[in-house]
């Protein structure tokens, strides 16, 4: 970066990890679509739409991981419910896509999605109105998780629920949402969720062009999300947030309103997770209540832990690594995957408190710098 002399830019792109992240991201977003669209299908260099969608999926996961890293790595809030915000964003997008099906559903009803016709509903529930407009759905994908997180956080942080207590009630939150969304009469398709999407913004959702656009959009969202988080953590507020992580009571005694800082970073993180979910759904083509499973949220945490906390690029690396391993092992050695994941949890927390990124740094730097204990 030649322009790194500018203070803001040097702040944002100053460290090597971030540079590497942007380098890889840029390369991915440019090369993958070219290999998919321009290279002939028989060629060895051709990337199938499956692979491209997979990478696109990883990018939305990476965005989710950044959101978790922001609250956990920088603010010390271990959220075991972030997949809930991700899924809510996904549902908002899913509802838009359902409305776009129109008369092409199995029952051909112009307004009601198939599952509502199936349940003998005659009218669209009130909360489905407006989702025929993209901008509305897009806004909801950010607002719904954001507002939920705001209310939840306002209640929790104000009464100083911290540590494991907070972790557990976030888990209860996602568990309650899962149970709720499994109910048929909630109006979100129950067990089957939302699927069979046809088009987005008037484009066929399975057309190569649309897929590439969604892929690029995910890459751009990831870049923007990363920049926003980076900016946030390097701002004055970001320093307070890190102070909260390291010594919450002391920060409060100095005179900062700890709960406000926590609340805003928490809400922002949830909205970011919502965006990730909204990009995830059109690429995988389905959203169902199993996305709310408590284990999903915990898995996100392990992505971040594997990659390395409070670096942002570590979260991205962790998300991609763990998910690639998951894709590989669940296909090649399905029984082995849970062992591997379990061992990952144990080994990373025991031996790699700074994750893969920390390991890389450890190899490079002198050993005495790394011998220092890592705070929780």
């Amino acid at each position: 970066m030649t322009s790194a002399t500018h203070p803001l830019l040097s702040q944002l792109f100053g460290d090597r990890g971030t540079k590497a992240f942007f380098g890889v991201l840029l390369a991915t977003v440019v090369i993958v679509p070219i290999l998919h669209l321009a290279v002939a299908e028989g060629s060895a260099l051709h990337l199938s739409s499956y692979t491209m969608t997979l990478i696109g999926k990883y990018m939305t996961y990476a965005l989710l991981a950044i959101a978790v890293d922001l609250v956990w790595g920088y603010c010390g809030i271990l959220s075991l419910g972030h997949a809930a915000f991700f899924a809510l964003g996904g549902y908002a997008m899913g509802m838009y896509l359902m409305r776009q099906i129109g008369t092409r559903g199995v029952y051909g009803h112009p307004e009601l999605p198939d599952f509502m016709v199936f349940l003998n509903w005659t009218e669209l529930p009130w909360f489905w109105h407006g989702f025929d407009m993209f901008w509305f759905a897009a806004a909801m994908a950010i607002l719904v998780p954001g507002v939920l997180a705001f209310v939840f956080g306002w209640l929790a942080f104000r009464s100083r629920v911290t540590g494991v207590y907070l972790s557990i009630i976030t888990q209860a939150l996602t568990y309650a949402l899962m149970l709720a969304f499994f109910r048929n009469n909630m109006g979100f398709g129950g067990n089957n969720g939302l699927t069979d999407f046809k088009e987005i913004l008037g484009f066929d959702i399975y057309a190569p062009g649309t897929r590439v656009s969604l892929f690029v959009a995910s890459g751009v969202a990831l870049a923007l999300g990363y920049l926003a988080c980076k900016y946030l953590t390097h701002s004055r507020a970001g320093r307070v947030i890190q102070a909260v992580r390291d010594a919450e009571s002391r920060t409060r005694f100095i005179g900062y309103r700890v709960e406000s800082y926590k609340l805003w970073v928490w809400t922002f993180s949830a909205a970011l997770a919502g965006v990730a979910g909204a990009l995830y759904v059109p690429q995988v083509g389905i959203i169902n209540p199993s996305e709310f499973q408590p284990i999903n949220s915990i898995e996100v945490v392990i992505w971040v832990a594997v990659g390395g906390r409070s670096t942002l690029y570590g979260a991205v690396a962790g998300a991609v690594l763990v998910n690639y391993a998951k894709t590989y092992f669940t296909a090649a050695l399905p029984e082995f995957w849970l062992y591997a994941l379990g061992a990952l949890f144990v080994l990373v927390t025991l031996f790699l408190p700074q994750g893969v990124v920390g390991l890389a740094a450890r190899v490079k730097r002198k050993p005495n710098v790394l011998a220092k204990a890592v705070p929780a």
Partner: protein
Amino acid sequence: MLVITLLAAFAANASSDDGFAQAVGKLATTNFKIKREAVDEIAMLRHPNTRAVLAALLDGSLYFRKEDKRVFVLEASGDTVALTDAVTLAPAGAASTRDFTKITTNNQLRKQLKGILAGFALTDPDADVRRAAVAEMMRSLDADDAALLRDRIDAETDRKVRAMMRSALALADLESPEADVRLSAVGALQGDLSPEVFNRLAALVERASDGSFAEPDERVRAAAQKAVNSIKSKRNLYGLFETLFFGLSLGSVLVLAAIGLAITFGVMGVINMAHGELMMLGAYTTYVIQLLMPSYIDVSVLIAIPAAFLVAGAVGVLIERGVVRFLYGRPLETLLATFGVSLILQQIVRDVFTANNRPVETPSWMSGSLQINEALSFTYNRLYVVLFMAIVFAILLFVLKRTSLGLKVRAVSMNRPMAKAMGVRTEWVDALTFGLGSGIAGVAGVALSQLTNVGPNLGQSYIIDSFMVVVFGGVGNLWGTLIGGMSLGVVNQVLEPHAGAVLAKIFVLIALILFIQRRPRGLFPQKGRAAEA
């Protein structure tokens, strides 16, 4: 009257088999008059097989062979049937239905048969058989039944059967043309909770479509109304008891699941996400023990309790020594690491026992239910769970409050450095505490194996609930866990009929999330410096 003379005849000695065979042979006819006489004769003889033959006749499973007119009981349908000789009740091979003629019955004959069979049942030495017979009669009461009951009621020795007979007679009296008889019948029925009585009384006070009452006398109506109201309120009361009992038994399960967690969480500040899997191990231990001793299912559960304690406790100590002890003071990391352990344990169980649910048998002493009255009964397995929880709780309380280990555990939980300075081997205490909490989880698993499916996901479904109980009750307080678990169980059961199981659970979760805001440290928060850690 016929029935009564028959009953008198029962006192006579049973006749020879020949006479019985002869009487049964008479049934091989199509003439109903002869059949009725034959039935009377069979009943009078009081042969040991009398009842079986008459019951078969009433069922329509009594046939005679066309060629020699011998009478058989036929079983199963289709072309071939199993034959049973009606006189000796010995199996007589198989044959085709075409060779047989069914011995048909008409209304009159059926009524006669029912009366005779009921008479048999009412004189049965087993009080339960007599009670069932009266209950059967109450369902469709007629004058003959009433006469039979009136005759038997003074000879009846069992208090409960007698009360039922009295109710049945009162029901019969409601048909009386005299208003005073009906009135006293209503009085006698007051407080009876059986559905027959309730329906009959409710019918008395109902208006027919033309606005007239089924019961012409106003006094009887008023009395019936009063009786109906009192039965209704009693039923509501017992319904409340039942909900409460269900709630307490569910609460006991929650307490069992959570109490081990309360120890590890409260004493060591360690979140053990593998706690559910330790329960799962306990449940699988029960299964293995049953496999090892298939002929002693009744005792197997009792043996499984210490076995599960040891298995889960040993695994717990392993987890503590291998993982948790490196992470003290870092609760969030412990949470992640133990979650990893839980995944590994689940997969091990899947590999060893497959992913399918394993059948765990219920010992005979745990099946059935304790019948308090017509409207209230407690199933034994739920009753035992409550009892079991109480025992486990008492033992745990004893260990923590009265033993030297308990003293050390409490000392470490209050102030670790000070305890260490006093010479308590905190490491050793940690391992034992973790083992104790895990062992209790295994014991909870034994209880769960009797209530739910035993599969690899057993633990996962309870882990969030148990955390809620601990968080609700307050960390490090056994009484808090008890009260927390019980109240969650009861609230869940009270909400369930109104909101459905899933919605009730969601309400409870939301209520808990809100509760934590009000009291971030639970119902009974830890006091002193330990609380600030």
